C-alpha cells in the first residue's frame, strides 16, 4: 500500500501558481526525494498534504485516508519539519517540546531527551535567544519525538553546520530503518542523492520526472573526460554527445547512448588519461531545467 497517494493535486493562490496537476505515490518505508528550485511548489505540496492549505482541485490520501477529512487523526502518525522554523518566542525549549509532546497520546519524554542529546540542544534556553540553526534543531526534535510513521522534511538541513547535518541524516536514516517513510524536500541535490531511494523533480509547479535515483543516474548520461595531446573537441562530435567543451588540453562532454561507441572512439587515439563517471544529480538536474 502506498503511504502517500496524490491524484491530480492542483493549488492556485488566487491567480498565482502553486502546483499544477501533481500525481505521485510514496511507498511504505522509502525515502522519497522531492527536489526543485525555490518556488517550484515543494512546500505547497507538503502543506497541502498536512491540510494547512486546501487544494483547488484534486485530492491526496495518506495511509489510504483522505488527508483533509481525516487530517487530525492522520497527523498523529506524522512528523513535520517546516523549512522555516518558528515557535512561540517566549517559551523555553523544554516547554515547547513538552507542549508539542502533549498533543500525542503516548509518553514521549524519554525520546525527547534522547533526541535533544543527539542534537546537542540546550533545553533551558528561551526560543527567542536561539540562532537559526538551533531553532532548526528544536524543529527536528519536535518533528521526531512522537515516533511518527511518516516524516515530512522541508529542507531539513538548511542552516545547520556540517556536523549537525550529518547527525540529522543519521537520525533520518535510523528512523527510516525502523520503517518510517520519509518525504524529503530539498533544493540541494547532493543530500537527496545521498539519502533517497526515489526522487521526483518538480519545476514550476509540475513534476517533470519521477525516477529511481540509480536509474536516473545510470540510464541517462555519462560524464566523460579525455586527456590527450593535440586533441580537438570536434573529434567527439557524434550522436549522443552534449555539452562538448575543451579545456586545458582535456575534452569533456556528456554522453547518452551505447557506451561502446565512445570507448571505440577513445581507443583510436593515444590518450594520457580518461575518466568516465556518473554525473551528479546536479548535472542531471540542470538538464531538466534547460
Amino acid at each position, binding site marked *: 500500500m502506498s503511504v502517500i497517494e496524490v491524484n491530480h493535486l492542483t493549488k492556485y493562490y488566487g491567480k498565482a501558481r502553486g502546483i499544477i496537476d501533481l500525481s505521485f505515490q510514496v511507498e511504505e518505508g522509502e525515502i522519497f526525494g522531492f527536489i526543485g528550485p525555490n518556488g517550484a511548489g515543494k512546500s505547497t505540496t507538503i*502543506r497541502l498534504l498536512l491540510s*494547512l492549505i486546501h487544494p483547488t482541485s484534486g485530492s491526496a490520501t495518506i495511509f489510504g485516508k483522505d488527508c483533509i477529512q481525516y487530517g487530525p487523526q492522520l497527523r498523529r502518525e506524522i512528523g513535520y519539519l517546516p523549512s522555516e522554523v*518558528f515557535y512561540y518566542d517566549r517559551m523555553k525549549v523544554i516547554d515547547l517540546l513538552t507542549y*508539542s509532546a502533549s498533543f500525542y497520546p503516548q509518553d514521549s519524554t524519554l525520546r525527547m531527551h534522547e533526541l535533544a542529546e543527539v542534537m546537542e540542544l540546550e533545553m533551558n534556553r528561551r526560543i527567542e535567544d536561539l540562532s537559526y540553526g538551533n531553532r532548526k534543531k528544536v524543529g527536528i526534535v519536535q518533528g521526531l519525538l512522537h515516533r511518527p510513521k511518516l516524516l515530512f522534511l522541508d529542507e531539513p538541513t538548511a542552516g545547520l553546520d556540517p556536523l549537525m547535518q550529518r547527525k540529522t541524516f543519521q537520525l533520518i536514516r535510523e528512523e527510516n530503518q525502523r520503517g518510517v517513510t520519509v518525504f524529503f524536500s530539498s533544493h540541494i541535490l547532493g543530500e537527496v542523492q545521498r539519502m533517497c531511494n526515489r526522487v521526483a523533480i518538480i519545476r514550476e509547479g509540475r513534476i517533470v520526472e519521477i525516477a529511481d535515483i540509480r536509474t536516473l543516474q545510470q540510464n541517462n548520461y555519462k560524464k566523460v573526460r579525455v586527456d590527450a595531446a593535440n586533441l580537438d573537441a570536434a573529434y567527439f562530435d557524434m550522436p549522443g554527445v552534449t555539452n562538448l567543451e575543451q579545456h586545458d588540453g582535456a575534452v569533456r562532454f556528456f554522453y547518452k547512448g551505447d557506451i561502446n561507441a565512445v570507448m571505440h572512439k577513445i581507443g583510436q587515439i593515444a590518450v594520457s588519461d580518461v575518466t568516465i563517471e556518473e554525473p551528479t544529480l546536479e548535472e542531471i538536474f540542470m538538464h531538466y531545467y534547460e
Partner: protein
Amino acid sequence: MATNIFRQEFNMRLRSVITWSVAVVALIWIYGSLFSSFADQAELLNEMMANFPEQLLTAFGIKDVNLATVLGYFGFLFLFVQICLAIQAANYGFSLVSVEEREWTADFLLSKPVGRTRILTSKLFAALCGLAITDIVVWISSVAVVTLFKGDRTYEIKPLLLLLVSIVPFQLFFLSVGLVISLLVKRIRSVTPYAMALGFGMYVLSVFGDLLGESTLEKLTPFKHFEPNYILQKGAWDLPLVLISVAVIVIAVVGSYLLYTRRDIPAVV
C-alpha cells in the same frame, strides 16, 4: 476543547489580562475617589457644566446627567471603562488566530493532531477566561468604589448591577467582531491599530450618533446598545439594541468557525 491548547493560550495571555485589569481598576479607583469632591460642590459643578458647549457634554455622555448623584457620576466614569474593555476585547479578538500567522507558529499548531474547530474553541475559551478575570476585577472594584465613596448618598443597586453585567455581551461583541475581521483579511501585521480602530471607532460612532441625532448610527455600536446612562436611568437594558449586539456576536462567531476551518495558512515566502 483541547486542554493543552487552552492552557498554553491562557498562559500566553495572562500578562496582558493582568495589565488590562490593573489599568481598568486604577481608572475606576482614581475617578471614583474624586466623586465626593464633585458631589460636595454640586451647585458649582452644575453651573460650570451649563457653561460647557452642549456638544462637549454629549461627547462625554454627560448631557442631562447629574454628576452629583452616585449613579450619574458612575455612568460618566463607566464610559471610560467601556472604552478600555472594548479595546482589550478587540485586541484579543484580532490576535486570537492572526498572531499564529504573523509569527509563523500556525504551522506548528496546525500540523498537530487536532482539528481546527477544536483549536478555535480552545483559543476562544482561553480568551473568554481572560476577559472573565477582567470582568470579575471590574465588578468587585466597582461595587467597592461605589460603597466606599458614596458617603451618605443613596443609590439603587439594580441599575448598577445591570450595567456591570452588560460588559459581558459588550466584550463579546468586540472579541467576536475582531476575530471575524481578522479572518476576513489576508494578514494582520499589527493587532493594536486594528483593536484601537474598532474600539475607538465604535465610540466615535456613538458620539456622532448623539451629536447628529442620527439613530441609524446608534444601531451599529455597542456603546449605544449598552449605554451606561440609559441603563442607570431606566434600570433596564435597551432590549432591541441589545438583541442587535447578540445577533452580531452569533453571526461573527459562526462566521469565524466557517472561515477558520476553510482558511489557507500563509507560508513564509
